[in-house]
């Protein structure tokens, strides 16, 4: 291997690492706020890419139907709960409208986008909106009632959600894989490297999102409320911070980050309905590097995973995944020295 190849592989690894960093960011966020090990994060990634791909082909994306399905289910749950708790009908109606309004609006607008042959940026906006709107609905449907359950129970729920979403992905998008157009087709030659515009956008978007997260947690009241919930749920509740609202918000953010990651990665990687799972798990390997708690360490882990993957695929391309997923063992060994204790909750 000479320097040129190493540089190309390094760039490749960093690019993928940036995507894994975004996924890991969402995973750490969700875990610290809700104690949920969010296996289905990768599904948001796939849904983002596939939604844009459908719009590109002039088809109504299946995620619109999925979003409506989830909204109706959530509305039914809300309605039943409202009636059971004997809330006034006007309040119940209001909550139903609140649940259904955005999904319905998105479902109504998306066909219009197709008819107008809207430009790429509008399609991207629509994609991000559709997938992001699923976040809080998913929290409502699968997790909210179990928010007091153990980490283990929540993890098994996550696996169930992953199963359901993957299966629904197959129903709505079929088994074929798709790529989406790059946001920026430019190319720059830097020495032996050829940087694409998309690569620059990936780096840019990752840095911006990381900074935004930092700003959000350190400087805004909502961010501090989320942080408080992650430290002590009961304590935060006594201070008037709703654990459910915090969970819902963290899922919204996770869905947004997931969809964005999908849009960033899909010009260079073909995305199938089940591709998200592997991307999500690589994000997990990165997040475990930081004990599922530290954003900077997860970032370092993500870059590590990206690099191991790209160099691994050069040396033993067939065993790329084997290498990446075996890396978790030394990482765990290292973690077990860093924080060996706390088993009792």
């Amino acid at each position: 291997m000479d320097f040129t190849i190493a540089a190309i592989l390094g760039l490749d690894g960093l690019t993928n690492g940036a995507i894994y960093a975004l996924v890991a960011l969402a995973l750490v966020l969700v875990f610290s706020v809700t104690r949920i090990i969010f296996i289905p994060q990768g599904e948001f990634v796939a849904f983002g890419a596939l939604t844009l791909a459908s719009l590109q082909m002039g088809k109504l994306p299946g995620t619109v139907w999925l979003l409506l399905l989830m909204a109706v289910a959530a509305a039914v749950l809300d309605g039943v709960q409202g009636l059971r708790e004997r809330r006034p009908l006007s309040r119940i109606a209001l909550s139903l409208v609140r649940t259904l309004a955005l999904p319905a609006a998105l479902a109504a607008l998306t066909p219009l986008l197709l008819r107008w042959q809207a430009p790429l940026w509008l399609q991207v906006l629509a994609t991000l909106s559709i997938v992001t709107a699923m976040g809080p609905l998913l929290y409502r449907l699968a997790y909210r009632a179990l928010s007091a359950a153990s980490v283990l129970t929540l993890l098994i729920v996550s696996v169930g959600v992953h199963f359901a979403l993957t299966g629904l992905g197959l129903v709505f998008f079929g088994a074929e894989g798709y790529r989406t157009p790059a946001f920026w087709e430019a190319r720059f030659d830097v020495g032996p490297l050829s940087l694409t515009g998309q690569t620059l956008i990936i780096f840019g978007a990752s840095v911006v999102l990381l900074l935004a997260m930092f700003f959000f947690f350190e400087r805004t009241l909502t961010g501090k409320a989320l942080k408080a919930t992650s430290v002590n749920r009961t304590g935060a509740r006594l201070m008037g911070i709703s654990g459910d609202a915090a969970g819902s918000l963290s899922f919204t953010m996770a869905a947004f980050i997931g969809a964005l990651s999908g849009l960033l990665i899909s010009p260079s990687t073909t995305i199938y309905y089940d591709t998200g799972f592997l991307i999500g798990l690589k994000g997990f390997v990165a997040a475990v590097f930081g004990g599922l708690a530290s954003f900077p360490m997860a970032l370092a882990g993500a870059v590590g995973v990206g690099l191991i993957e790209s160099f691994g695929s050069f040396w033993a391309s067939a065993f790329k995944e084997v290498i990446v997923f075996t890396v978790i063992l030394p990482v765990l060994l290292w973690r077990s020295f860093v924080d060996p204790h706390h088993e009792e909750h």
Partner: protein
Amino acid sequence: MTRTHLSVAAALLLLALPFAPVPDFWITQLNYIGLFSLVVLGLVLLTGVGGLTSFGQAAFAGIGAYSTAYLSTTMGLSPWLGLGAGLAITLLLALVIGLLTLRMSGHYLPLATICWCLALYYLVGNLEALGKYDGLLGLPAVQLGDFSFQSERRIYWLIWLAALLAALGVTRLLDSRPGRIMRALNTNRGGGATMPEAMGASTFRYKLTMFVIAALLASVSGWLYAHMQRSVNPSPFGIKFGIEYLFMAVLGGIATVGGAFTGAALVKLAEDQLKVWLPLVFGGSGNYEIIVFGVVLVLVLRFAPDGLWPLISRWLPAKGQRAVDESAPALSARQHPGRGAPLLDVRAVRKEFGGLVAVNDISFTIRAGDIVGLIGPNGAGKSTTFNLVSGVLPLTSGEVELLGQRVDGRSSREIARAGLSRTFQHVKLVPDMTVLENVALGTYLRTKTGTVRAMLGLNAAEEAQARAEAMRQLRRIGLESQAHELAGNLALGPQRLVEIARALASDPSLLLLDEPAAGLRHKEKEALAEVLRQLKAEGLSLLLVEHDMDFVMKLTDRIVVMEFGRWLMEGTPAEVQASPAVRAAYLGADE
């Protein structure tokens, strides 16, 4: 008819089935159900009982299947050698993964198993020697002497014999010395490591044991599968099946042996139906059944976290309670020091939490036969001192000597072995074990049965001794009539007494009671005081941490008073009561 009779009848019926004119289709179905049950039984032990989980059980099955496939085709060796090799490799891998993850929080194990299941899948799928994604074909049938398990109807016996033996082994294990510790570990059911460690058990070792057993059961299932199919390929050992096994366990009833079979049967039968019907609904083809599985999994966890087995077992005859044979020979007893001999010597123990000195150079001694009270207002550092002595917290400095043996810095497990036993301020009983079983848990250090012995059922004599001892201790505290009640059904007062009985069952030289009267009603306090008076009369040495002054004054010989982590005074109850310093500490009056 008892539950046991019914189980034996069901097992015999299952084993006799191939003689009956049952269609081949159903034999095949039952073969799969048996194979799945084997894996799920491991998850029942690991997840339902131990509160740990693994999504990688399918990969362990894959190890079992590929080991025998490679050895019996490429190398031409006997499938029995393949079984041994598969088990050996599985054991090794499970030990590595377990050693890496089981010391950390519970969620690292499942994450690690997901990753390693994927890694193994891609590894096997890309290895030339293992036939890549096409797998290996033409496995021989398993031979036993001249008998060849060549047809599905024949290997049925092997599968169900394995499944039923595994069920028997797991059932026996759960009702044994190691099993009681395993059942106390589940953090999802209020368990944890502190209590079993205080009873002298290495909880890490038992977690590892459970993980290894689960892995070995999966490996056997994989071996059977390979020789039933007579071919292997990577797909049944991927993460999808790893998750499905867990689904079966959750659906059937995660903590019960019956649930394993229920879950395996339901999922297998439902999967076949769904595979027919869902493609008609959605068009095309694919694994649509995972949508249903995923949604049902979430619903079950929400609405029936104990799974479906409780709905079935309600109609079965109640589990028979084994009688306690009190004529069983007594367990070996410790040589206790004579009255007045030095027992516990605490010298300047200190605990700092960051800048806060919670315990500031406390010293006191206990002689055999003493009843010493450690009192002080809230926040005085009594419980921290207690935890330093019992080894739950590491000390910053100071020395503790128990029966002439230095125990400071030792684990609570080693201190228990040295002759100290304790109760907990927040009662730590296993709610779904009977009172008798909870007390029998206290005999851990006086008994020896290991996991393998328990699974083979070779522990009957010692088990009878342990149960007889538990009954004796229950009689000692006056709760023998509730021996077969579930501990979780008792009120707090009796639960505290059961904790004392459990501690007594370890035959301690010194008994530490952590706020035994806290939260008790008046009558319950009286009953507790009566028991403690009786123990005192029997010559037992006690250290009592308590802030109910009245309770302590009536019982103790000597009292150590603490305030703000410091030693305030030591004396007889009368001296303490007369001390203005103590009064000031409690009432906040000026000195």
